[in-house]
């Protein structure tokens, strides 16, 4: 089974840097797509594979940090590695706080960059997985009836069947029945897992 090939997006207005980076990243077996500006990147169709973004801070038009914010506003969580020709500390702090994976001054050591890329791809892959999971989870939760959700809420808190029954004004049996349905629908294998799911959903 083929793992989807991760892709690295490179955004830098300097062509020579773009080309060099593209060559380097491809040489380690990753896909690269390069853009000359933030807006170009934003308006591009991105394939649904683990990816990361190697981004110069200073860009014409939409600057690096702006892009970062724009992406996070749009709910896109693609990990960002900043590269910059200026060793600007306040900027780097801002970038990191806003969730960047790494902030590398140019010229960078290839190891630093490649490590960061790998890390970023990892993170993205993980994040994707988690997102997928969550989507699945949400989907499954969606199949619960309202009563089931009530029950789920209580048992996730650790309430005993008896307590839950009395709380909801239904019999213990009914509670047990709901419980079985919930576990099936949610595809949980243990109560602990169910509890985790509920946390995730919250």
């Amino acid at each position, binding site marked *: 089974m083929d793992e989807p090939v991760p892709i690295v997006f490179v955004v830098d*207005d*300097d*062509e*020579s*840097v773009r*080309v*060099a*980076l593209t*060559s*380097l990243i*491809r*040489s*380690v077996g990753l896909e690269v797509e390069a853009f*000359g500006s933030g807006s170009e990147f934003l308006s591009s169709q991105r394939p649904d594979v683990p990816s990361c973004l190697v981004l110069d801070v*200073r860009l*014409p*038009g939409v600057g690096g940090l702006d892009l970062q914010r724009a992406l996070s506003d749009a709910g896109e969580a693609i990990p960002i590695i900043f*590269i910059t*020709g*200026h060793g600007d500390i306040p900027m780097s702090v801002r970038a990191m706080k806003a969730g960047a994976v790494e902030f590398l001054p*140019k*010229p*960078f050591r*290839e190891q630093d960059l490649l490590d960061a890329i790998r890390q970023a791809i990892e993170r993205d892959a993980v994040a994707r997985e988690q997102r997928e999971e969550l989507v699945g989870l949400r989907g499954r939760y969606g199949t619960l009836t309202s009563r089931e959700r009530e029950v789920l809420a209580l048992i996730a808190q650790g309430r005993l069947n008896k307590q839950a029954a009395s709380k909801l004004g239904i019999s213990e049996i009914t509670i047990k029945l709901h419980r079985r349905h919930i576990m099936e629908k949610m595809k949980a294998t243990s109560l602990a897992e169910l509890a985790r799911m509920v946390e995730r959903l919250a």
Partner: protein
Amino acid sequence: MMRPNQDPVSDSAPSGSIDVRREAEERWRAVYENSAIGIAVTDVSGGFLSVNPVLQRMLGYTEAELRRLSLLDLTPTEDREATRSRTAELMDGRRTEYHVERRYVRKDGAVLWVNTSVSAVPGSDRMPAMLVKIVEDITERKRAEVELLALRDQLATELLAMTRLHELSTRLLGITELHPLLEEVLRAIIALQNADFGNVQLFNAKTGALEIVAQLGFQREFLDYFGTVREEGAACGRASVRRERIIIEDVETDPAFAPHRRIAANAGFRAVQSTPLFSRTGEPLGMISTHFRRPHRPLVHELRLTDLYARQAAEMIEGKANEAEQRKLATLVEASFDFISLASLEGEVFFINPAGRRMVGFNGAELRGTHMLDYVAEEDRERIERQVLPTVLRDGRWEGEARFRHFATGAPIPMLPHIFLMREPASERPLALATISRDMTERKHAEEAMRRAQGELAHVTRVMSMGELTTSIAHEVTQPLTAMVTNGYAALRWLDREVPDVGEARAAVERIIAVGNRASDVISRVRAFAKKAVPNKATLDINEVIREVLSLAQPEVLARRVWLRMELSQSLPPVTGDRVQLQQVVLNLMMNGIEAMRAVTDRPRDLVVKSRLRNEEILVAIQDSGIGFPPETGGQPFDAFFTTKPEGMGLGLTISRRIIEAHGGRLWATPNAEHGASVHFSLPTEERARHG
């Protein structure tokens, strides 16, 4: 036979009828009584026999009184001898008559001048029996004669005095010091008035007092007492205050002089006169006083002459003061560091001060025969002759730059002469052409030094913006470096693969070289920027500069398939600037424009270069139809950090702007209405740069 009433006079008259005789007698009596002249008949010894009324009136005696007198009684003592001898001549027949002017003494003792005609009347024996005198009063005439003589004497005296005054003046010309001069004048006045002593005082403007500067005949006591006078009582003080001559005929009787009587007595004078001296403009200069041992009042004509002498003294005093002034001015001219010269209205030079001679290296003793134009460098002579000198003669002055000529080396000397018309003070009549000039060489040196300093300053400023620049350089250099290093890594990685991809590796290495070369271009551009380039200012035609650049840019234009259009205004005024630097700017902007259109494929790549004149500024615009600047960037194109161009030419714009600003212009960019952007720069015209 005896006739009744026979008059002895008519005894011998051979008359006819008695009536005729009576008529004759009556006629005679009428004449005798009514004549306007005096008639007298005397006997031969001069005793009056009959005297007509006129003569009686003349003499002041009645006839009866006169009959008791003789001629000699009426004759002044000193004249009697002459009278006797005249009468004797008549008597002894030497004469028959005489006419003479003589004096009579009237009854009241007054002297009468008369003109008499005396004739003898013979008796029967043919000997004089009587004398008839015709007397004419000439007293008035005589008085007039005497007066005339007196006047003539007076004139003679005055003439003598004037001659003496003239001699005095001539003599005084030889004396240069003021005090001996004044003493001479004093001496002359004392002699003129027959005074006993005198003094001359000068008015001290600072203290407002009169101070004795020359005196004749006074003792210490007087000098100490009257040495400095400020007050009213003394004659000179009074004269000073009243600004007119004061005469004190007798100090003993003059009340105001009372406080000074003792001094006067000790000094030995009883009378004094003080004549004030004034300058031409009425300023008090001093006083001349003469003193007399006895009470005295100088005669009017003496005072009149005194005034003449006083005027002379005043002129001398004024003259000395002026001389001092003049000497000061002359010293100023001699010692001045400026070139000062005088020439006739036709331009013939007759004076140059020492500094001026030094400046132009003129060591010839003889100025005569030189003309103003000889001192001017050849290239400026025509302008001076045709424009400047006529301006001076017409307007009275001219100031401007002109190159003089150094007589020894022939080198031009930049000067800033001020040429003006010297006029006679009273009549404003033009007298001469004066030139005062400053050597501009110093100033030019100073200007040069300042320009160098400005260049240094600009350099330092440039260096100071190294802060900006360093960051910008860092960026400009890190990009290629990053690219080079990254390409290097890539090359190695391609080669380290299980199956090395030599193609990729090679490509990477080639990229290293290419980027490296571009980077060194940037470095040399930066070096040029940091170099102390003092702009070479020359007069340039901006269109020419643009055209020269076009030939440099031609290959790129063709290669990039750019449509190049020129919209250059004809006959633009020149600008002052560094040709190479301005070419750099134009080339840079054109390259940027071409670069901006690199990605354009859907429309023509239009590059338009425009030049025009607006308000003493040359405006040049390079317009492209490229991607332009995104609206948000605004002024960012010139932010040294900012590079929109793939090749990293952001630094070029900063340098271009600095060059333009160093030329006194501005550089800015505007977006085009349709596509692309225009970069503009302005340069002041040479005219504006010179006067602006």
